[in-house]
Structures are given as structure tokens and as C-alpha cells.
């Protein structure tokens, strides 16, 4: 009976861990989205220096979470997000507003897709 109770406890812990994991990613992605949105607002106002600063802060935040994200997310997906971050940064540094709009959308999409995959929905399960 003890063995079965331990098994149930482990399953509950895994369930709790999954919820914590989703909440962590939700928090991280929403925070990053806030920064990249702000960077876009600066870019629209042609305040590129502030936009770059804002984005660099977001990149640092994303990189700091590396240890955790590498454990739970496919490394190829981490690569896609990181690439999107640097594409966006490159466009902001070039002060290319048109191109920045596209890379902003790409970064938004790749970040949101991580969250979509972690969220328990019919789509993500099946």
C-alpha cells in the first residue's frame, strides 16, 4: 500500500510541477513580450537607442533563463527564439523600421508558440 501511495504522491508532484512549469513560462514569456512591445513602440517613435536598450534587456532576461528553459524546451525551439531576438535587434540597430516590424512579429510568434506548446489544450495534447 505504501508503494501505491508513493506512486500517487509522485504523480501529484509531477502534476504540480507541470503547473508550476506552465506558470513559469507564462510569466517569462509575458514579461519578454512586454519588453519587445515596448521596444517596438520606441522604434515607431524612431527612438532606436531606447528600443535597442529595451530589447537587450529582454535578451539578457531570456539568456538568464537558459538553464531552466534548456531542461524543459526542445533546444531547436530555444534556437528559433534566440535567432528571432537577434534578428529583431539587428533591425533595430540598423534603424530599419519596416524590417523591424517583421522581425518583431516573428519574435512574438516564436515566443507565443512556446507558451502554446506548454499550455494544456486540445491542440497541444493531440
Amino acid at each position, binding site marked *: *500500500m505504501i*508503494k*501505491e501511495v*508513493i*506512486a*500517487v504522491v*509522485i*504523480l501529484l508532484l*509531477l502534476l504540480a510541477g507541470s503547473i508550476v512549469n506552465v506558470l513559469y513560462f507564462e510569466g517569462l514569456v509575458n514579461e519578454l513580450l512586454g519588453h519587445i512591445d515596448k521596444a517596438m513602440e520606441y522604434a515607431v517613435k524612431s527612438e532606436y537607442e531606447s528600443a535597442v536598450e529595451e530589447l537587450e534587456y529582454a535578451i539578457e532576461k531570456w539568456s538568464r533563463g537558459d538553464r531552466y528553459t*534548456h*531542461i*524543459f*524546451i*526542445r*533546444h*531547436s525551439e530555444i534556437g528559433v527564439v534566440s535567432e528571432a531576438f537577434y534578428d529583431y535587434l539587428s533591425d533595430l540597430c540598423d534603424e530599419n523600421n519596416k524590417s523591424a516590424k517583421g522581425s518583431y512579429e516573428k519574435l512574438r510568434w516564436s515566443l507565443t508558440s512556446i507558451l502554446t506548446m506548454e499550455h494544456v489544450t486540445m491542440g497541444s495534447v493531440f
Partner: protein
Amino acid sequence: MAIVFIRTLVIFLALLITTRLAGKRQMGELELNELIVAVLMANLASHPLQDIGIPLINGLIPVITLFCCEVIIAGINLKSVGFRAFLHGKPSILIMDGVVNQREMRKNRLTLEELTENLRNHSITDIRKVKYAILETNGTLNAILFPAERPVTAVQMNLNPEDPGFPSIIINDGKVLKENLKLLGKDEQWLKDELRKMNVKGPEEVYLMMLDNLDQIYYLPQENAK
């Protein structure tokens, strides 16, 4: 390369521990749920080994989850007869009084060749001699012969054979198994005396030595000794 190496060790240990904890049944005849777990575990655990881009946790979580499910199902199985019947079905009587139950044969998708092959595994070549043949829920066939066809027992012959007990290994490849020796009520001095009687210098010259409750010794020397 180092990552693949470490991951393989981690997955191997995880599978080893979970299979060991699942019990000895896992290694023998598998019931339906055990078969599913065994097949799934091996398959799921191998993916992160082949692709280092997949987090190892993606292999470990399914292994742990499956193990927990298996333990819970095994627990419910022990407690509930209804659940056991639902999960494993019921044994099927394929032969009764020497007659093959064709309905049960069809139901279990069993051919006559398979049935006779299984009977031959029990050294039975004539179906007429079988009182009952039962297909167990784990897929094994058990056959019970008519009383007249069963081997004669000592009781039937009014014999009272001595019980030699369980022969235990006391020297295994030159090493004395002191615990077994103690269980048989012997000590190392007794062993030394016995070895001297057999002109053996010491346990290192013995490959296998077994002893039963009637003090009967089975002895096999090391091939390279002397």
C-alpha cells in the same frame, strides 16, 4: 558525445530502477498493462538518447509517470477482483474432459496448431488425455491430465521419501557463502574438514559446492586448479 553518454547512463539507471521496483513479474510473463508499460518505456526513453536537442526530462517524465501508473494499477489489481477481471479478462478453458472448446478457441484467436504446440511443451501429444487445458490471462497454457494419466506420486505408492530440502551453494567460484553455510547449520571448520577429506587445499580450488539438508555434497573443482 559526452551528453549522449551521460544521458544513456541516466536513462539506463532510471529504467533499471523502475523495472526493479515494478517487481519480478515484469521480467517474466507480462500481463497486458505490464506489456504496454515495458514497450512504451523502452520506446519513450530512447528518443532523448538519439537526439540531444530533446531535453532528457522529456524521456524521464514518461518513464516515471508510466512506472507510477503501473504501481497504482498493480495495487488496485491486488485489491479488486472486478478490476482484475476487467483489465486481464478471465482464464479460458480450452479443453474440458478431452474435448476442445471451439468457441473459446475462436474467442482467443487460437489455432489448433498453437494449441497442440502448447500441449507438446507440457509433453502432451494426445488431447484425449487432457482433463482441462486453461489459457491463463498472461497467455500461458496450463494443462491438467485425467487422474489416470498423471504421474504416480510417492503417496500413491505408499512410499515415504526423505526430504533433501533445498540444496544451497556454499562455495561459488572459490568464494565461501558464509550465510548459506550458517543457514545449513555448518561452520567454516566443518567446511575445511570436508575439503580436506576431498583432498582439496582450500575453497579457491572449488568452482561449485552445494549442500542439502541430508548433508549430501555436490562438488565441482576449478578447471585450472591442480
